[in-house]
């Protein structure tokens, strides 16, 4: 595995100019989760807002600090998840987790995962999988609070 396949341009770009950075106000329709990678101390606080009927994701905002993988992953998640139905989000999270844990055997589909598909390469670096998962686990937990 080359370093360049891990740190694709797209990833470095997202990590430097992250989308959705800065937490929106909390209200009755938001769920918030704080996740931390115990190994390196990387952290993400992510807030997800759902529609009135709870069925659709309205927006995702977050704050945190960490390596370029964890920051880019959060940023890419924001792009992907905004406006998506709740069920679809759960599927996306599951698929993302499966691919990341696959030790390089499952590629994320670009048509489905958009920019986040660039994170496929992380699955070959098992020590970095947690970094990429941080925001997605936060989303999962945040969503669970909004049901």
């Amino acid at each position, binding site marked *: 595995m080359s370093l360049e396949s891990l740190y694709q341009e797209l990833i470095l770009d997202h990590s430097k100019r992250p989308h959705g950075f800065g937490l929106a106000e909390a209200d009755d329709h938001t769920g918030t989760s704080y996740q931390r990678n115990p*190994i390196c101390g990387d952290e993400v606080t992510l807030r997800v807002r759902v529609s009135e009927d709870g069925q659709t994701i309205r927006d995702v905002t977050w704050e945190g600090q960490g390596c370029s993988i964890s920051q880019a992953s959060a940023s890419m998640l924001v792009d992907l998840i905004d406006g998506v139905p709740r069920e679809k989000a759960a599927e996306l999270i599951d698929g993302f987790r499966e691919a990341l844990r696959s030790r390089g055997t499952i590629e994320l589909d670009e048509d489905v995962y958009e920019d986040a598909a660039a994170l496929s390469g992380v699955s070959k*670096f*098992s*020590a*970095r999988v947690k970094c990429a998962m941080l925001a997605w686990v936060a989303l999962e937990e945040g969503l669970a609070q909004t049901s």
Partner: protein
Amino acid sequence: MTVPAVTPLDLAAIRADFPLLAQEVNGHPLAYLDSAATSQKPQQVIDAEVEFLTHTNAAVHRGAHTLAAESTDAFEDAREAVAAFVGAGEGELVWTSGATAGINLVAYAIGNATLGRGGEAARRFALRPDDEIVVTESEHHANLIPWQELAARTGARLRHIPVLDDGRLDMDAAAELIGDRTRIVAFPHVSNVLGIINPIDDLMALARSADAITVMDACQSVPHLSIGLPATGVDFAVFSGHKMLGPYGIGGLYGKRELLNALPPFLTGGSMITTVTLDEAQYLPSPQRFEAGTQPVSQAVGLAAAARYLQELGMDAVHAHEVELERRMRDGLREIPGIRLLGDTDAAPRVGLAAFAVDGVHAHDVGQFLDSRGVAVRVGHHCAQPLHRRFGLTASVRASASVYTTPDEVDRFLDATGGVRAFFGAS
């Protein structure tokens, strides 16, 4: 006991895997009949550890570099392999340095809960004075003293299920003992002196009706029986690597995931926390919560190789082999005048070991005599003083088998034992 039809072990092939067994002792081929104390290790286990140490070795769960990642993978793969061997699911297998450490972990964690550690979730474990902890009279000290100490620290009372003359647990007494006050029931799956497989379903039924926490000492069963720990229903169970063809310094604690995640930590330090300030720490879920500090990484890899080795032999075949040897031992010992077997009953299923006393000759002297014939047995109280006291003894001789033990070794043991009383002039 009915033994399922299985492919018998290929003893010649197995023995070729154990380099130590080929040696001579005192001019005789070694007959190693002390496997219940510690087993020998096949080349596969030694090789797995050496291979790890010479090609992969680095700190796990801690670095981004290639060797660290490979080591972490090897370490967690090992956990999966050993967990699969005992049927444990994700988050249910904690590495310990051995069975003794595992029981102490549970006992101290309950003690910590009693002192208010672990918050709301841990309340269910807290003991109150007059709560009762029930053990058996056949306990190895490892599953006795930690509970004595917990009782002494918390004001709980320790009670015990007596052993019958034939070595079986007195289950009527157990039914009387285990009741409303019982909070913990700790018991051995198999006694390391009697070789009897205890009726754990009955014990579990009693414990469940009392809503007690159950802790099973599976040291002498995991290496010898096909066992699925979750299916037994026990809350916690422990075993040691060195008794199951694996390395020293490693063992497993099985626990129901929900319980492990509610239990406060025991050992604290690195790699088991999320956030640490100078004043307090937040703990990771199981298993990391209980794995403070650098873990026995190469030993985990070695233990996984041992589990795979046993799995390939097939635990049913292992058990059938060992039961046959036990039969041979006990039948032979019964023929020798002046031998008193401990737990000599056919009314209970057993593993491959036999303990006995020789009339007029001290166990130490018996062991020395057998050693001069190349036969290695264990003598003493086998860390079960109360059980020996129960039978009016301070020491006994124990012969125990493993996958590599041959009928011929058993015969040599019997032959030598037959000569003991004459040598020492016991009448």
